[in-house]
C-alpha cells in the first residue's frame, strides 16, 4: 500500500495539499448493466489515471463475484485529475440489499451522475437512489448512456427522467461509455455544475467512514471523507459510534493505485488504516474525530446494519461445522452486516442461523463461503424475522420456523412489511398488480412516467418478496421491470407454521411460517415436490404437511418393487460391483429420517425456491 515511499513525518498536522474549491465529489448511480463500470473505465483512461496498457474491463470491481455478476458489492473509490480539478469518484453498491451503504456513500458526495441506459430507461433502484440524492441535497447530473446502440431511444428516456425527477430534458447529457463519446463533456459538466465541498479546515475533525473492507495484511481499510478539520497520519482518533480510540497508521488516496498521503483536508476522500481487525468497529456511517480535540457531535445518519433475511446454513459434511464457523467469523471481519448463531437441525445436523441484508446478500455470502473457503453447504429456505406477541405479555423475535412457540402461547404474530417500488412497461401493469395482490400486497400509488412506463408502489409482506417475487416480476414483464424496496414496519398477520412429516416424523429443515391462506397450497407443493425427490423405499412412505395440528396435504412414495435387474455375466461383473460400491457409499451419505433414507440432493432440491 505504501507505493510512494516512506511514511510522512508525524510531527504536527501536514497541510492539506488540495485546493478545496477545486474538489468535486460524486457518485455514479446506475442500474445493473447500464454501464457504470464501463463509464468508470473510460474516465480512468481519459484522465490518464490508468494507462491503456494497464486497462482491463471493470477495473474497479475487484472481487471475482463482482466481475462475474457485473455488480459492485464493495465500493471502490478513486481520485482523478481533470483540468486542474480533483475529482473523487465514489462508488456505490448497485443493489437494493445495500441501500444503507448507498446512503452513506452519497453522504460523502456533493453530486451524483445518474447514468441511465438510453435503450432501457430509468429503473427502480436508480430512481430510488436519485430520490436519496435529492434528500441529501446533491446536484444531479442525468446522463443517458449507450447512445451508440441502435435500440437507444434518448428522447423517450430523457422525457421520462424529466417527468419523474423534474430535470429538464435539455440538460440531460448523452454519452457512450463504450466508445468514449461525450465522456470529456461529462467531466467538464461535473467540474462546472457540482459544487465544491464546504467544510472548515480549522474546526475539530469530523470524517465520515462510508465503507470498510478487511485486508488480510493491513487489517481494516476504511474509505473516509473528511467533512471538517484535517485528518493526519499519526493522529489519535476517536471513533464516535464505538467510542474506541485508534491511531491513524496510514492515510492515502487511490489514483487508483493506493498512494500514501500525510493528511486529508475538508472535502477530501481517501483511505484510512488504523490497526483495526474487525470491520464491525469501522462501520459505514461511523464518524472519526481527534481524541485530543473531539467534535461535539457525530455526523448524522448512522444506523446499525439490520438483517432482513435469514436462513440456516449447514455443511454438507458434518465434519465441516468448525470450518464453517471459522469461515463465517473471517467473513464477518470484512462484512459486518452478517449475523450468525449456531443452530441444530435433526435433519441437517449442526449449522448456523444466519442473517443477511437481503436475498442477494445471502447468495453472495453463500457463494463466497463455498468459493473462498471451499465449503459445501446446504441452505434452508430464506425466511424473515417475525414478532410473536405471547400471551404472557412478552415478545419473541423468531428468526427460524423452529423458534415458533406452540399456538396456545401466541396472542399474535407480526411480520415485516416493505414498501416496494416497481417500474415496469405500462402493458404489464395488470399482470403485476395481480402478482402483488396474490402476494397479499396493498397498492400505495400508481403513476405513469410516460405513456409506456408505470411506477407502481405496493406495501408487501417481506416474506413474499424474499421468496421468488423478483423472478415472478421479471417473468411477468419479460425482464423489463425493476424493483426497489424499503422496510415499512411490522404488521399483524394470520400466520401459521407448516410442518412436513416424513413417515410421521417432522423434518425441521422443511418447516415454514406462512400465511394461513397459503398454508394448504404451500403444504401441497412441498409434499408433491418431496414425493418426486425422495427415492422409493422398501415400504410406503407417507409425506404429510401439517398446520395447527391438522394434516393439510398428503402424498405417498410407493414402496419400491424392483431395482435394476440387469444381466450379470463375465463382462458385467466389474461394472456391477462398482455400481453397488457407489450405491453403498451413497447410502452412507443419506440422512435417515423416520427410517426413510433421504439423499442430501433431495434436501438441496426441496429447499430451492425456483423448483
Amino acid at each position, binding site marked *: 500500500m505504501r507505493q510512494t515511499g516512506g511514511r510522512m513525518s508525524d510531527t504536527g498536522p501536514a497541510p492539506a495539499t488540495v485546493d478545496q474549491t477545486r474538489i468535486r465529489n460524486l457518485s455514479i448511480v446506475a442500474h445493473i448493466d447500464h454501464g457504470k463500470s464501463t463509464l468508470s473505465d473510460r474516465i480512468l483512461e481519459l484522465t490518464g489515471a490508468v494507462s491503456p496498457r494497464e486497462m482491463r474491463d471493470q477495473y474497479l470491481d475487484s472481487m471475482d463475484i463482482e466481475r462475474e455478476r457485473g455488480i459492485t458489492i464493495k465500493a471502490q473509490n478513486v481520485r482523478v485529475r481533470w483540468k486542474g480539478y480533483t475529482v473523487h469518484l465514489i462508488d456505490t453498491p448497485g443493489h437494493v440489499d445495500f441501500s444503507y451503504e448507498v446512503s452513506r456513500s452519497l453522504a460523502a458526495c456533493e453530486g451524483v451522475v445518474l447514468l441511465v441506459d438510453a435503450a432501457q430507461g430509468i429503473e427502480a433502484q436508480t430512481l430510488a437512489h436519485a430520490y436519496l440524492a435529492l434528500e441529501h441535497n446533491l446536484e444531479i447530473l442525468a446522463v443517458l448512456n449507450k447512445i451508440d446502440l441502435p435500440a437507444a431511444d434518448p428522447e423517450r428516456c430523457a422525457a421520462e427522467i424529466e417527468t419523474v425527477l423534474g430535470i429538464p430534458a435539455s440538460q440531460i447529457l448523452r454519452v457512450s461509455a463504450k466508445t468514449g463519446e461525450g465522456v470529456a463533456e461529462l467531466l467538464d459538466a461535473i467540474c462546472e455544475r457540482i459544487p465544491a465541498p464546504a467544510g472548515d479546515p480549522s474546526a475539530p475533525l469530523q470524517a465520515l467512514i462510508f465503507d470498510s473492507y478487511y485486508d488480510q495484511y493491513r487489517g481494516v481499510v476504511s474509505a473516509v471523507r473528511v467533512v471538517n478539520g484535517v485528518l493526519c497520519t499519526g493522529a489519535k482518533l476517536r471513533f464516535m459510534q464505538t467510542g474506541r480510540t485508534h491511531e491513524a497508521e496510514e492515510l492515502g488516496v487511490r489514483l487508483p493505485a493506493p498512494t500514501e498521503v500525510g493528511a486529508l483536508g475538508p472535502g477530501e476522500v481517501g483511505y484510512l488504516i488504523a490497526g483495526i481487525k474487525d470491520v464491525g468497529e469501522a462501520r459505514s456511517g461511523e464518524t472519526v474525530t481527534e481524541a485530543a480535540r473531539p467534535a461535539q457531535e457525530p455526523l448524522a445518519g448512522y444506523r446499525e446494519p439490520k438483517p432482513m433475511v435469514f436462513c440456516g446454513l449447514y455443511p454438507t459434511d458434518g465434519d465441516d461445522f468448525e470450518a464453517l464457523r471459522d469461515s463465517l467469523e473471517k467473513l464477518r471481519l470484512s462484512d459486518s452486516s452478517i449475523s450468525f448463531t449456531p443452530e441444530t437441525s435433526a435433519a441437517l445436523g449442526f449449522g448456523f442461523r444466519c442473517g443477511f441484508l437481503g436475498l442477494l446478500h445471502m447468495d453472495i455470502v453463500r457463494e463466497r463461503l463455498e468459493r473462498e473457503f471451499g465449503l459445501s453447504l446446504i441452505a434452508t429456505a430464506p425466511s424473515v424475522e417475525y414478532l410473536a406477541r405471547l400471551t404472557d405479555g412478552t415478545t419473541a423475535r423468531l428468526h427460524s420456523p423452529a423458534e415458533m412457540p406452540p399456538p396456545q402461547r401466541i396472542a399474535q404474530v407480526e411480520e415485516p412489511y416493505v414498501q416496494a417500488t416497481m417500474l415496469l412497461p405500462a402493458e404489464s401493469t395488470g399482470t403485476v398488480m395481480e402478482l402483488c395482490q396474490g402476494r397479499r400486497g396493498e397498492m400505495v400509488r400508481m403513476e405513469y412516467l410516460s405513456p409506456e412506463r408505470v411506477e407502481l408502489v405496493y406495501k408487501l409482506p417481506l416474506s413474499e418478496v424474499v421468496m421468488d417475487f423478483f423472478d415472478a416480476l421479471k417473468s411477468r414483464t419479460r425482464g423489463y421491470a425493476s424493483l426497489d424496496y424499503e422496510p415499512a414496519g411490522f404488521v399483524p398477520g394470520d400466520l401459521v407454521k407448516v410442518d412436513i412429516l416424513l413417515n410421521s416424523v417432522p423434518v425441521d429443515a422443511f418447516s415454514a411460517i406462512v400465511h394461513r391462506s397459503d398454508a394448504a397450497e404451500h403444504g401441497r407443493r412441498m409434499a408433491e415436490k418431496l414425493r418426486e425427490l425422495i427415492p422409493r423405499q422398501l415400504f410406503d412412505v407417507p409425506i404429510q404437511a401439517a398446520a395447527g395440528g391438522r394434516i393439510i396435504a398428503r402424498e405417498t412414495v410407493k414402496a*419400491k418393487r424392483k431395482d435394476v435387474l440387469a444381466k450379470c455375466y463375465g463382462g458385467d*461383473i466389474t461394472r456391477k460391483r462398482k455400481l*453397488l460400491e457407489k450405491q453403498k457409499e451413497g447410502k452412507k451419505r443419506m440422512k435417515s429420517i423416520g*427410517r*426413510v*433414507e433421504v439423499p442430501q440432493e433431495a434436501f438441496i432440491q426441496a429447499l430451492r425456491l425456483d423448483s
Partner: protein
Amino acid sequence: MHVPFCQRRCGYCAFATWSGLSHLWARYVRACRLEVARAVEEGLGPATSVFFGGGTPSLLPAEMLTGLLGDLCSGLGLATGAEVTVECNPETLTPQLLRAYRQGGVTRLSFGVQSMVPHVLASLGRDHRPGSVVRAAAWAGEAGFEGAYSVDLIFGAAGEAMGDWEASLLGVLALDPPPVHVSAYALSVEPGTALARQPDRRPDDDDQARKYALADEVLASAGLEWYEISNWARPGAECSHNLLYWSQGEYIGIGAAAHSHRVLPGGRARRWWNVAQPERYCQRLEAGRAAEAAGETLGPAERQWEGLVLALRTRTGVPAGALAPEVLESGLVELRPVGPPVAGRPAATRAVLTLQGRLLANEVSLRLQAGAQGQLHRPRPEAASGAMVPLVP
C-alpha cells in the same frame, strides 16, 4: 469368445458391437486365433465350457467359428462333457449352419428371441419375426440340439402389454422342440443408447416387477426353475458357463472387449478386459501384443464381497451370517439348509432370495456384510444398529 458384429444395432443395446464391418470378419477371426495361441502359450488348462457371445456370432460363416473352436480344442483342450454355446439370431439361421455347428463341436444354442409379439419386436427394433423363431427351433431339433437350446427374452418394451408378455412366454414354451433354458431380462436403460435418449419409452419399474413375477410363475409351471435372477432352466440344463461366472471361476475372454478373470494367490484375483474396437483389437494382436485395455486386481475383502453379491443372485444364496437379522426377517430372503450335517456340525444355513427379494437384489446386496461368511449366528445388534440401513418401517 466375443463376436462384435451385428447386422444392425438394437436401440437398447450397450454391448461392444458394430454393424457394417463385414470386411473385418476374416481378419478379426484370425486375430482371435492369435489370441487363442497366446493363451495356449500361457499354459492354460483344458476349457470346461466355451461361449460364443456377441454381437451376433451366428453372423460369421460356420467355418470361421468352428475353426476358432478347433484351435481352442487342439491348443488348450476341452474337458469331457464341456458345454459349447453359440448365440444365434433366429432370423439369419439356416439348417446348414446349425448342422455345421453340431459337427464342429457346438453343444448348445442360445436364441435371441426377445419377444414373440410382432409389435413388441418392432418396438425393440428387432428385425426378426416370430415365425423365424418357430423355424429356428425346428431346425435346431433336426440338427441335434433338442434339449440343448435356450432362448433370451426381454420384458418391458414400450407398448408391451401384460398379455403380450404372457404370449411371449407361452410362445417360446410352445416351440417344438421346447427350450430347456430361458433367460428373461428386464429391459434396462443403458447410458448412451438410443433408448436412453427417449425418456417416454423407458420401462416402468412396477410393470416390470409384475412381468417378472408372471415369468417366474409361467416358467416354473413348465418345469423351468429359476437359478439366477434372470435365468430359468430344467434341472440339469443350467448354463455351466454362466455358473462359472457366478462362482468366481477362472475364464479367459477372447476377442474385442472380452473380459478375463484369473485367481491369484492370497485370496486375490485379477480381472482385465480387451480393447473394444475390433480394428484396434486386430492391430494389437497382429503386432504381437496383448489386447488388454485395462484391468483391476481385487483384494481379499473386495473379492469376498463380490463373491457374496454374485452368489446372492443365484439359487445357492449366501451364508445366512452375511446378512443381518432384520434382512433375514424382511421377507426378501428365505433360509434353506444346504447339505447334510458334517462332522457333528449342523447343516449350513443359506439365505436365498425370495421372489420379492430377486426383484430387489441390489437392495439386499447393499446390506451384505463381507467377513461374516461362515458365521451362522450373529448376536442381534443392540442400539448400535444405526449402522444398518433400515429395511422396514
